[in-house]
């Protein structure tokens, strides 16, 4: 097994990082066009994970995740425009359903692709105002979550957690109390170190999931549940300690931290929490 990025993958990671940093302030549709032009939607699983991790890091506002990891694995192709998939059997809390050009439905008769508007999706108010989630009503829905959707949400959540830790590290190095940077206090250091370890663990399992999907390895379904569970566990720690270490600053709307805390938390709550996936692993 080779568990390091090869040269092309390293290059891709660098390109994605540069692109998302440069285009951070662009409007959504321009971002979406950029991603399409760069061919990111068509990336195979490991490369897709590399893209998603960085999009998670910047709390990407586009329907990239839903199009590439919810629509594509169901429909077997990319959407014309943006898309999403319904595979939870109930049509509830579907990522980006309210703005998807196409929606792939997993039904008893197989996959049916419909125009988004046909389903009259109802957007739900959620704590993350930048994340689109909607309920749809459709008959005969079946539950079978694609491995790629779990992996995609997992690595995106890992990206959010990495961002949280980077913000925390930046903050505790510069914030001074009792005459020293708070980052020199050991209680603070140890929280940061534990966040780092949790991120490394979740990140490794997410890429392993991508790898098993890429090679259609028999372990792929278990690997996807492991990835989703580990991302959820990681998010739990990073949310709690990341928020705590910012003090009251973390309690404010103004602070950038809140955006990533919410993304990370939503990433756990969608498609089964860590606890649900741990249970799935025991079946």
């Amino acid at each position, binding site marked *: 097994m080779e568990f390091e990025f090869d040269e092309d993958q390293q290059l891709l990671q660098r390109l994605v990082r540069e692109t998302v940093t440069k285009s951070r302030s662009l409007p959504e549709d321009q971002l979406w066009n950029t991603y399409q032009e760069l061919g990111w939607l068509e990336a195979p699983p490991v490369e897709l994970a590399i893209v998603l991790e960085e999009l998670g890091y910047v709390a990407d506002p586009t329907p990239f995740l839903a199009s590439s990891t919810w629509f594509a694995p169901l429909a077997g192709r990319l959407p014309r425009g943006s898309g999403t998939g319904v595979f939870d059997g109930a049509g509830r809390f579907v990522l980006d359903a309210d703005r998807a050009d196409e929606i792939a439905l997993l039904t008893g008769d197989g996959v049916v692709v419909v125009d988004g508007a046909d389903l009259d999706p109802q957007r739900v108010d959620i704590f993350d105002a930048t994340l689109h989630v909607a309920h749809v009503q459709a008959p005969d829905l079946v539950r079978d979550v694609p491995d790629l959707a779990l992996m995609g949400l997992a690595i995106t959540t890992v990206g959010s957690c990495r961002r949280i830790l980077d913000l925390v590290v930046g903050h505790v190095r510069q914030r001074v109390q009792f005459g020293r940077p708070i980052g020199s206090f050991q209680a603070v*250091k*140890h929280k*940061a170190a534990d966040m780092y370890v949790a991120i490394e663990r979740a990140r490794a399992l997410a890429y392993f999931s991508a790898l098993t999907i890429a090679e259609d390895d028999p372990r792929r379904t278990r*690997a996807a549940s492991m990835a989703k569970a580990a991302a959820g566990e990681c998010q739990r720690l990073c949310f709690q300690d990341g928020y705590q270490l910012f003090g009251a600053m973390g309690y404010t709307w103004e602070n950038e931290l809140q955006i990533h805390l919410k993304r990370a938390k939503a990433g756990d709550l969608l498609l089964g929490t860590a606890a649900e996936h741990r249970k799935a692993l025991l079946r």
Partner: protein
Amino acid sequence: MRLTSESDAEVEEFRAEFSAFIDANVPGAAEAVPASQSTADVPPWAADWQRKLFDAGWLLPGNPPEFGGRNATLPQQLAHLEELSRRRINHSFNPQGLGIIAASILTFGTEEQKHRWAVPILRAEMTAALGMSEPEAGSDLASLRTRAVLDGEHFTVNGQKVWTSGAHDADVLLTFVRTDPDAPKHKGISVLLIPTDTEGVVRKPFGCLTDPDDLDFNEVFFTDVKVPRENLVGPLNGGWGVAHGSLGHERTLLWLHYAERLEDLIQDAPCAEEWYATLQMDFQALKLLGYRQLGEDRNEAELSVLKLFGSEAVRSAALCALEARGADGLVHPELTGPLNHMGMPSFTASWFERYARSFGGTIAGGTSEIQRNIIAERILGLPR
């Protein structure tokens, strides 16, 4: 990134060859008496086994043949350890002798020292213990006070070590001593090989928490002990470098030891509770991070991630395994895994003992707290 790699076929061939060697040579249960009593007690049958491995180049395959290996690649060394762990077989019943003391001598010693000390340790003709910690120097190893004064061709050593695993059964101690009390604390330390039969060396073994008769820990006292100058390993006052490098390759593969314990628990403690899923995830993630660490140009401090993550994962899984037994978890002694004459009995001991011993991982070799300090300061760049 791929599930398979080009060297796989070569590694599998290597694994098959080693596997056949084990089948043909591993001692049977009837042969394996008496059992080893400490980490430096190598009974004759266990010494024969270790010597066979050495002579065939299977003891430490990464070494050159003269030191018990066959110049194997890192993936091959990994396969070698995986094969041993899968079968729960020790290659040596003096693990610190093999992994730390001989390894330090091979890295820092002179040619003469390699043949005089390292080879006999590797061939199980001599056993060794590690004298680093002192009553006043645990995590803060650099504050050690055991004093060695060089006078002509001899050092004279006075002081005390503690926790010295297996010292009462060891022939030689790799001893960290202070040779320059005026230098900054990291710069006045040297390393001496001190035979335990030297006059003035007194060893007092004491029990560990699970059994007063299980003697591995020792206090070691040195009173005017004369040590020939040629027993100095590495440069005079350069002992801190030896302390850091002393684990050599072993340090790169230390995580595998925790992966083995996790795998044992996966097999021995099947359970339908959620912690059992966590255990499997930890095992998988540790292996992935371990493989990645074998790549080039990794930050040394990332070994701290593996040590912290691996040892803490074993400890929490062992606790869950104990709790899952409820009142049955009280039983001690007990056999909780397949009876195994080739492994450490503690790895299949009572659930309480397995949990209690898992703290060896989180305390020895740099505590979890120290590893967190390293991660925070050297990876995340937080101020000291």
